[in-house]
């Protein structure tokens, strides 16, 4: 058997030399010829080509050199404006329901059951509060954002985005398909990293994997939307608020594209030098989206799955937060100690200790950053700032704003830098694990984790320093 296979491979090699070296091209050519022949016999064209013309006209605008990017900007603005303007009222209703009524009711229940204080604290103030906050903060924007995004996707717009960006990626020394994996990352970075399998060259694939982090994922959209709404939008006149808020989120998303291109260019000129591959991208026909089905499946498949993931992460995180702020070492809780330890570093980059500690707690899932920040600000933030500990549970946007500015000592810079930090910082643990699975390489997994983190610290340090120099804070 072994002799047979060796002989076989030898004679294959010999025959290959006899036949000539362009076998691959000849094989491909005959397959094409055959396909052409069969297709021409089976297909007849009749009537006008009106549908092709419609697609072509639309593409002339959406992928034009002049109008492609403005059109992209307008579409993104539209999506975020609808999300921000539409999420406001349901968000308030959910907060009233879950955080005001639900919280009070559970405490009453605990009182009638004579539950010990540590148990009701752990379960209600810890686990329940974290979970309720995740739902109140995340559900409404996601229930609007995901269906809208999916409708754009169904319509066939995403490959046009890739087409528009292709030239830029090429100039950055990266593969044009990276635009597709980047778009995939807007859902989930772990999925975006898996999607880089469509890139053949290992060099360009690594670039795509490392930079996928700068596509804002499901877990980070709510942070940006909330910060944009309650800080950036609130700083503008009321009739412009939702536009300014949407604009700030779009600006961060576009900054993510710029950072992706810059980091790709940096990598392809330093550690990952090499040729840029060419490829052909098929622009699929525009298809009228099936609206109701899309809304249904995107709510079931995306919104609820992402929300469920957030809840399963938030529940243990809530317990960790409650325990760490109620177990004391000396005169200070563990969380208090961590926060004061991190506070100088946090302030240096225009954030604070609570935010950095929240990012450590939220390594498994970015979804829980904002709820963690809120809980920590209300439990340990008061020790740092010296303000009165307030039990403010009914949380609409204005009240979140009040808590963060008065108890947490936040400024506009804190919110802006949190948005930047959220865009740039390290990927979540699921994504890091996926990067390891895809590369099986410790070095590149470390680069993909630490390069964004370093970038996040550098950029926020620069903006904070500039703001301080100019006397803004």
């Amino acid at each position, binding site marked *: 058997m072994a002799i047979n296979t060796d002989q*076989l491979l030898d004679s294959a090699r010999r025959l290959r030399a006899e036949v000539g070296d362009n076998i691959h091209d000849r094989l491909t050519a005959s397959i094409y010829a055959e396909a052409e022949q069969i297709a021409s016999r089976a297909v007849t064209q009749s009537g006008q080509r009106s549908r092709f013309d419609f697609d072509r006209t639309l593409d002339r605008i959406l992928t034009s050199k002049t109008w492609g990017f403005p059109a992209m900007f307008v579409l993104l603005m539209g999506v975020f404006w609808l999300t921000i303007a539409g999420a406001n009222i349901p968000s308030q209703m959910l907060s009233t329901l879950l955080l005001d009524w639900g919280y009070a009711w559970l405490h009453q229940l605990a009182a009638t059951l004579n539950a010990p204080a540590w148990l009701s604290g752990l379960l209600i103030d810890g686990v329940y509060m974290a979970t309720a906050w995740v739902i109140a903060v995340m559900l409404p924007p996601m229930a609007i954002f995901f269906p809208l995004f999916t409708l754009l996707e169904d319509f066939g717009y995403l490959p046009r985005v890739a087409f528009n960006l292709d030239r830029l990626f090429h100039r950055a020394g990266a593969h044009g398909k990276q635009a597709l994996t980047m778009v995939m990352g807007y*859902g989930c970075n772990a999925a975006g990293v898996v999607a880089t399998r469509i890139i053949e060259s290992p060099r360009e694939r690594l670039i795509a994997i490392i930079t996928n982090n700068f596509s804002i994922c499901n877990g980070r959209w709510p942070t940006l939307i909330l910060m944009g709404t309650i800080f950036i939008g609130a700083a503008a006149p009321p009739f412009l608020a939702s536009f300014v808020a949407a604009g700030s989120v779009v600006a961060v998303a576009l900054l993510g594209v710029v950072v992706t291109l810059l980091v790709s260019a940096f990598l392809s000129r330093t550690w990952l030098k090499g040729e840029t591959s060419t490829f052909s991208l098929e622009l699929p026909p525009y298809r009228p989206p099936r609206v109701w089905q899309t809304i249904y499946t995107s709510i079931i498949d995306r919104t609820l799955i992402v929300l469920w993931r957030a809840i399963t992460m938030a529940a243990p995180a809530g317990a960790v937060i409650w325990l760490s702020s109620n177990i004391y070492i000396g005169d200070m809780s563990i969380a208090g100690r961590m926060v004061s330890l991190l506070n100088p570093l946090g302030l240096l980059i225009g954030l604070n200790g609570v935010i950095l500690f929240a990012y450590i707690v939220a390594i498994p899932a970015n979804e829980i950053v904002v709820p963690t920040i809120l809980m920590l600000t209300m439990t340990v933030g008061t020790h740092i700032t010296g303000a009165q500990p307030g039990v403010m549970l009914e949380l609409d946007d204005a009240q979140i704003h009040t808590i963060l500015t008065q108890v947490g000592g936040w400024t506009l810079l804190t919110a802006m830098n949190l948005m930047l930090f959220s865009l740039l910082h390290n990927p979540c643990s699921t994504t890091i694990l996926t990067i390891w699975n895809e590369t099986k390489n410790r070095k590149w997994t470390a680069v993909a984790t630490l390069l964004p983190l370093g970038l996040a610290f550098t950029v926020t340090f620069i903006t904070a320093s500039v703001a301080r120099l100019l006397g803004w804070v």
Partner: protein
Amino acid sequence: MSVDNAVTQPTTSIAAGCATCPMYNGAQLTRLGINMTDWDFVVALAGNPNTGKSTVFNALTGLRQHTGNWPGKTVVRAEGGFLYGDKRYKLVDLPGTYSLLSTSVDEEVARDFILFGQPTVTVVIVDATRLERNLNLALQVLEITDRVVIGLNLMDEAKRHGLQVDDRRLARDLGAPVVPMAARQGEGVQALLKAIHEVATGACAPRPRRINHRDPQLESAVAQLVRQIEFAFPGLPNARWVALRLLDGDESIERAVRDGTLGQLTQTVAPQPAPTIHLELEAVN
């Protein structure tokens, strides 16, 4: 999911009338989702990117794998099951590829499954509006395996574009059953099931057309090599294709020859159960 409650109950009198008609075979389909512990047949779903494979996959399994209007959406294979007649089928949705000749990971996943996964039937979904380019892949699949069903999808779009596609002519030229479909509207799904069933049970045995390379030198080299391959691996179902790959210097096929993976294809082994289901990742995005 229990098998009984998944069967759609006809509600109107017209539907009731249809259900008793011998032409109607909708009631024979039970979608099993990812519940597919024992199966009788394995069906692979191949095709160019963005031709509606995932739509067909969802229609057959009842799963709601997210479908997107852009190429390259499925990079890992998704699996699901359905019951048709009295047979249980496992359906594997392969990444969309233009060819099986190249070296990217998604093409290798698709090729390796069709070759080494030994599916009972391979369904190739082709886009009726871009038939020529889609046939490149279909012809390559027909080189690897005989048991192929062609799903001629997007017939509705072809019609809107003023294209007439002669499915019977196509079936005759390819030597394999061709099912015209508009999967997004659910048209042709029943006919596809019937064709899959017939090929799986052997009621229909496609005799596919092999590509003639019109190159005497190449053909004689292939013939020589086929003789040696058949000697080394008696009973190998696709010796001609393996010969072409070896002549082309395909490293992964050379490896399969060397380590004996190719030799396993000579026995009719039951398909290996797939290790993991990757649905979770796809559902999130």
